[in-house]
């Protein structure tokens, strides 16, 4: 830990030194150059330069470009501004030299930028390779300035929109309009269904008309609901009409419309009055004055270069292979090949796959096209580990089942026929469907005619439409009901088919991925594609997917789990044989004696308050074994112990414990079962009752042990206010703060288990406690040693990240 601290101190010191303001130093001229690379794409020009000592978050490099003409005129245009800490040459994948560590380290000390002249001179886009360009480089600093900008007014908190209540007439009209629309929609849907059935009749499957059915389903449901509501509305309206006459009702509507308009106006007003606010934003602005150019002999250094397009090179044949993806469920095949020297942002690799039926290749299909700078084998350490060799390889995982999916339609047909066979004979959907459909149409039409009338609202009522509507039901609603029952059967059948189909598909996919496949890989630039070749013709790699036995990427997990389990188990065994394993002193526990002693002096009782936990949870068990000790001591000092319970079972156990410890202390007579009461069963009543007792009996000492919830605060507070010594212990971390602030001693978290193990010498607890200690020791060791090592390494510029990768969790 000393190393990083030192580093930090130095850092801080230097930071202080660097406070003073001075002109920025540009990188040295020699390092600033343009260069060509086999991976060039013919559009960009590579620039590189060394790092300036003044790089910081605030400073930027500025690259300026000039075409032949501009250069003659002495005109340069800014083509890029890059943060001075970014754009290291080592970050540029295509320039990385995968064999030469030294070169890569050198790249860390260089900046790199690929400039695209066409971005400044769009006219040159075609001819960029035949022209020279001139570049110069500067470093600029920035300062922070605040800009004020108007901000849209805060949207006001949403209020319950005060809509005036809709009068009956309007409501009824709305409702009946809605109703009519639904009816017509239903009619249309039925018509559509009918036509579809007719034209599809020869090739009719449940699947083909089920969408229609479920659509009709939904509409019918709405109609049936609306029908009832509509009738209610109309009846109500009818009554009103008789009572007040049509004019009054119409008047209501008019008033209502006015009110609504008024309300909207008001809301509008409110929105207007929102005050606009101004928001301050901090922005970087470049420092004024000439930027510091990279200069040679007083003048800014200018480098001249032109874009190059080297010929495309195909990856080597050896190292190109296809194999089952390890540690997977047998769905994928991995295809791997070497890097081509001409990779760049504009090239891609394409992977093609073909089925192999007993030695005969099928046609090759494109399975994947990946950017040539990505898809490194090293990007999937989960399956291929962290070997540095993986950086030199490309690897993509192909799921054959995705490329050659099983024929879903055929499968569906098959499943449907299977299931049909099981269906009762009198039920053959695709023949009698229309027969169920058409009877619906006529009554519906009649029904709609009636419904149309209603939409007039009052006018309709003069003709008393409501009863006639009910008349029209008689033909229609029963039909609907029959239809629905039928649709219900259909839907169930189809859902069943879907489930079966899903299984069948899963099965088919599994079979598909187990087959043998052939692969081709090629590099593509524009419309030019070069396949990996072996003696003159494209090379195929064979591979098949297999389900594997072990997830090797979880190896670290396996080892850790097993070894830790072994340790714990061993220590439990040890504790069985030797029950006085060492456990350190625990402050709260030391205080127990003193606290009880105090109670004895003052001649006042000791309170032991259980938490809410049942006998099942560990903290309660721990609490009980602490209670045993407390009871024992106070029995010896002849001090009264009162144990508060809120759980009958815990109460029973506590009574047992207290009784026993009295006997052990040779005072069985002193034990009184009423000293271990069941105070109250519910959380807050419990707290209240216990507090009552505390205040009345003024105990000298209070123990709060077990798992507590919100009531901890109440108990601890009152306890403190009565002036008792309080010793608390709980593993419910959210409550610990209250105990710490209000109690004299607190057993924090695992301490309570340690305490009980210490007292009870119970092998289970003792052993696992010790086992956990070993675990913690290991963790601490790993943390400290690992961090130190990594820090050292990164300070010395080595890459020891493997230490960290050992603990990678996939």
């Amino acid at each position, binding site marked *: 830990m000393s190393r990083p601290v030192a580093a930090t101190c130095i850092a801080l010191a230097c930071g202080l030194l660097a406070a003073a303001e001075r002109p920025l130093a540009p990188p040295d001229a020699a390092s600033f150059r343009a260069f060509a690379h086999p991976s060039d794409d013919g559009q960009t020009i590579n620039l590189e330069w060394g790092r300036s000592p003044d790089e910081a978050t605030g400073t930027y490099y500025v690259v300026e470009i000039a075409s032949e003409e501009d250069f003659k005129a002495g005109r340069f245009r800014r083509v890029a501004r890059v943060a001075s800490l970014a754009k290291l040459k080592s970050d540029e994948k295509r320039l990385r030299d995968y064999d030469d560590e030294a070169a890569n380290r050198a790249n860390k000390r260089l900046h790199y930028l690929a400039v695209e002249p066409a971005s400044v001179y769009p006219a040159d886009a075609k001819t960029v390779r035949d022209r020279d360009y001139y570049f110069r480089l500067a470093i600029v600093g920035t300062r922070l300035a605040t800009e004020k900008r108007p901000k849209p007014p805060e949207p006001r908190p949403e209020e319950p929109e005060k809509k005036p209540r809709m009068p009956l007439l309007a409501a009824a009209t709305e409702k009946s309009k809605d109703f009519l629309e639904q009816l017509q929609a239903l009619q249309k849907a039925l018509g559509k269904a009918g036509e579809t059935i007719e034209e599809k009749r020869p090739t009719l499957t449940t699947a083909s008309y089920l969408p229609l059915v479920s659509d009709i389903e939904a509409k019918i449901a709405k109609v049936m609901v609306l029908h009832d509501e509509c009738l209610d509305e109309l009846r109500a309206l009818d009554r009103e009409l008789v009572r007040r006459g049509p004019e009054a009702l119409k008047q209501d509507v008019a008033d209502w419309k006015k009110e609504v308009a008024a309300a909207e106006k008001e809301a509008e007003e409110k929105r207007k009055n929102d005050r606009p606010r101004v928001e301050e934003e901090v922005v970087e602005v470049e420092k004024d004055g000439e930027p510091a150019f990279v200069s040679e002999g007083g003048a800014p250094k200018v480098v001249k270069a032109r874009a190059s397009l080297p010929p495309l090179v195909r990856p080597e044949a050896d190292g190109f292979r296809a194999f089952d993806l390890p540690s997977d469920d047998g769905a994928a095949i991995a295809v791997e090949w070497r890097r081509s020297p001409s990779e760049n942002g504009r090239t891609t690799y394409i992977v093609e796959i073909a089925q192999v039926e007993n030695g005969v290749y099928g046609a090759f299909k494109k399975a994947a096209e990946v950017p040539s700078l990505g898809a490194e084998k090293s990007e999937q350490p989960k399956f291929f580990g962290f070997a540095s060799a993986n950086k030199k390889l490309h690897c993509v995982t192909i799921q054959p089942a995705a490329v050659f999916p099983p024929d879903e339609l055929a499968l569906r047909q098959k499943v449907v026929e299977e299931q049909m066979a099981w269906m009762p004979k009198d039920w053959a959907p695709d023949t009698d469907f229309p027969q169920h459909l058409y009877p619906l149409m006529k009554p519906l039409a009649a029904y709609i005619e009636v419904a149309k009338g209603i939409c007039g609202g009052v006018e309709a009522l003069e003709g008393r439409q409501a009863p006639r509507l009910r008349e029209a039901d008689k033909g229609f609603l029963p039909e609907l009901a029959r239809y629905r029952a039928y649709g219900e059967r259909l839907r169930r059948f189809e859902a069943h088919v879907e489930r079966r189909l899903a299984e069948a598909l899963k099965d088919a996919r599994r079979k598909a991925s187990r087959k043998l496949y052939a692969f081709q890989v090629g590099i593509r630039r524009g419309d030019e594609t070069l396949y990996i070749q072996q003696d003159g013709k494209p090379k195929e790699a064979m591979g098949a997917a297999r389900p594997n036995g072990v997830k090797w990427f979880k190896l670290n997990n396996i080892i850790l789990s097993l070894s830790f389990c072994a340790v714990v188990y061993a220590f439990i065994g040890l504790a069985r044989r030797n029950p006085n394993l060492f456990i350190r002193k625990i402050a709260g526990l030391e205080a127990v004696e003193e606290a009880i002693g105090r109670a004895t002096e003052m001649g006042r009782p000791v309170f032991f308050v259980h938490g809410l936990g049942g006998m099942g949870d560990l903290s309660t068990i721990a609490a009980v074994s602490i209670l045993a000790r407390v009871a024992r001591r106070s029995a010896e000092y002849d001090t009264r112990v009162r144990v508060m319970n809120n759980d009958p079972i815990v109460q029973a156990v506590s009574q047992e414990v207290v009784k026993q410890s009295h006997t052990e202390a040779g005072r069985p007579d002193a034990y009184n079962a009423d000293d271990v009461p069941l105070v109250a069963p519910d959380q807050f009543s419990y707290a209240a009752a216990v507090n009552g007792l505390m205040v009345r009996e003024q105990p000298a000492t209070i123990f709060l042990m077990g798992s507590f919830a919100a009531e901890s605060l109440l108990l601890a507070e009152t306890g403190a206010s009565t002036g008792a010594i309080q010793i608390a212990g709980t593993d419910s971390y959210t409550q610990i703060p209250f105990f710490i602030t209000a109690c004299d001693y607190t057993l924090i978290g695992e301490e309570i288990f340690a305490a009980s193990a210490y007292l009870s010498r119970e092998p289970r607890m003792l052993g696992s406690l010790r086992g956990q200690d070993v675990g913690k020791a290991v963790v601490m060791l790993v*943390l400290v040693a690992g961090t130190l090592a990594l820090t050292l390494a990164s300070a010395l510029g080595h890459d020891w990240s493997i230490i960290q990768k050992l603990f*990678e969790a996939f």
Partner: protein
Amino acid sequence: MAAPQETTSPTRRTAELVVLVVLFFAFLAASAAKGRPVGAPDDWWLARLGVVVAAGLTLIMYSFLYRDNPLFKIGENLFVGVALGYGVILTWRQSLRPEIIDPLFVDPPHIHAFWMELARRSAPIVLGILLLTRLSRRASWLSRYSYTIMVGWGAGLGIPVTIHTYVLQQLKPSLGLISKALGDTPAGQQADLWSAALPILGDVIILAGIVSVLFYFFFSVEHKGAGSFVSQLGIWFLMVAFGASFGNTVMGRVSLLIGRMRFLLHDWLGLGP
């Protein structure tokens, strides 16, 4: 805390009773004061009644602030009961019906499908029924067969999962602590060192915190000498963290109170914006 410390003399009791009655009528008056809300649906009075009931229960709950009292207990138990009933109905609606009734007796379109489903679900249903034997004294041992399966599964699966989530996933970033901060800062960049130093400092603090707290909960060696210093450091870290939790707890409880206050003032009395 609810105040049982007051010795409750009979005179005081009567006084309290009177106050209670007065409060009750005040409550009714307040509730009645707010008539039919504008734009309310037809069954508005049900909602309104609901709000009044809810307000009443809320106030009863708050009466606990004065003292633990019968009204509070009634409210508490009533809500326990409602929650319980809610649980029963929900278990039926969300679990038993969709898991047992529907798949067996509603969904299958033909008898064959029914048998298949039954074959698939019989085992868990039997085990589930065995669970119920836990309720009887004599047959409760049967329930163990169900429990062992569940508990065993949980325990067995729990081990690797815990290692994965709580040990590996937590150790890895901790290991990278300082080195990462160092790696992020390019070597020899003076002007930037302030911002470079701070994260390192932070990482050192984190590391110190983790280690010292772990050491504090390390029971196999006596904490003396350097040990006592480390565990002392651990305690301090713990205290700071507990402080943070404490602050958040206060925040949470206050938020709840705010919510209830909003309900009383706004929904019940219709006051405020």
